[in-house]
């Protein structure tokens, strides 16, 4: 079909794409931090022996994992504004929405990894007089983190791509920037492939980064 990629370097297209990419990367990054923190809490909460807490976390998981991000974003950004006059900025709603959504997935990863750590580790910590939470923090989690890395990598890569849904709440991330260019010059394939490559670069960096971390942790504390 005769692709001509020079179109990407014409006008301000590349700049527009890179601006979009920057929005994507920065929003994703903030959402990722939120998702990791919140996901950890939800995952721990699900394992709590306080019934109400573990119930609450199970509901969180079921709702935020079970329903489409698009709907969650619409409710958060438009629904709250229309129904309750809570007017979040698009950036706030985007980071919150993405982060809460992804946290549900992360919580399952956290739970899986923690439950795979030998029970003896918790007992050893407790028998030394450390509290449950101290042991969790200083003994279990540092070991569990290593096992979380491969699925977390999956999840964070999915997160960068889910961020393209932010365009429905007025955030001009890279996919939106691409669609704007396409509607100007109708060069679908060149632009979409360029977008794919930009995502690829970001995601490949994530997987290389996490891969390194994995190796590093493997060397430091050997297999647990």
């Amino acid at each position: 079909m005769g692709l001509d990629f020079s179109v990407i370097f014409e006008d301000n297209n590349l700049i527009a794409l890179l601006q979009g990419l920057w929005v994507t990367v920065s929003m994703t990054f903030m959402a990722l931090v939120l998702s990791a923190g919140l996901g950890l809490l939800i995952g721990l909460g699900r394992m709590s022996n306080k019934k109400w807490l573990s119930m609450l976390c199970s509901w969180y998981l079921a709702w935020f994992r079970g329903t489409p991000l698009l709907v969650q974003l619409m409710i958060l950004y438009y629904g709250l504004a229309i129904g309750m006059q809570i007017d979040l900025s698009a950036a706030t709603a985007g980071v919150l929405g993405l982060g809460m959504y992804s946290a549900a997935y992360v919580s399952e990863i956290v739970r899986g990894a923690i439950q795979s750590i030998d029970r003896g580790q918790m007992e050893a910590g407790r028998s030394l007089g450390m509290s449950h939470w101290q042991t969790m923090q200083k003994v279990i989690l540092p070991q569990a983190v290593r096992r979380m890395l491969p699925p977390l990598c999956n999840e964070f890569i999915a997160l960068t791509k889910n961020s393209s849904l932010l365009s429905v709440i007025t955030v001009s991330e890279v996919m939106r920037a691409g669609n704007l260019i396409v509607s100007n010059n109708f060069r679908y394939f060149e632009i979409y492939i360029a977008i794919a490559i930009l995502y690829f670069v970001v995601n490949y960096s994530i997987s290389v980064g996490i891969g390194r971390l994995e190796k590093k942790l493997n060397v430091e504390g050997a297999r647990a």
Partner: protein
Amino acid sequence: MIQVKHIHKFYGKHHVLKDVSLQVSKGEVVVIIGPSGSGKSTLLRCMNYLEQIQDGAIEIEGKPIGLIERNGEKVEMPQKQLDQIRSEVGMVFQNFNLFPHLSVLDNILMAPMTVKRTKRSDVEPLAKELLVKVGLAEKAHMYPDHLSGGQKQRVAIARALAMQPKVMLFDEPTSALDPELVGEVLAVMKQLAAEGMTMVVVTHEMGFAKEVADRVVVMDAGSLIEEGAPAKIFTAPEQQRTQAFLSKVLSHD
């Protein structure tokens, strides 16, 4: 020092400890023996409240551990208080349970720094002293995975000692070790006993029991069936079941 008073322990419907009572005095070394599944580990773990008991009471130096009475009901004591008492009871496991992500030194420093909130520089001298004591001074910066089983167990002992416990509980500390490595761990334990540490030891090492124990306790099917000086238990046990067990353990060598 330790008072176990008529405790009962169930796993579901399985009655694992049946009205067990045991006194351990300060400085005493008590060895618990008995067939597999008789409840030795469970008894030891109850002394640390790693397992909940359903009836009876356990006291460490006169203070109850785990369950306390409040308004006539038995309730679990506050976490803080439990952690406090637990930190006075050291425990050594069959599988060492060292923290694999920490160096030997950090394994030892972890609990004192976390529980007592002592500064690293304040505990390090003690930790190093303990490593010398268990003969591993030069391994301080290695990771557990690079140690032999015997070395691992000696680190585990040093780790428990770093909390300066009043009593040490050992659950088959040598049974996961290659026979040639058993000796080094027993040597450390003998030294501890000689220094006057109160110890409760579950073990199959009859040699150790004969030499070090002040008292040997025999368990079978969840009950304490016999106790006495090692000489008496090994040479003239009263119970038939004790005899049967001893003959099995001592036969194949």
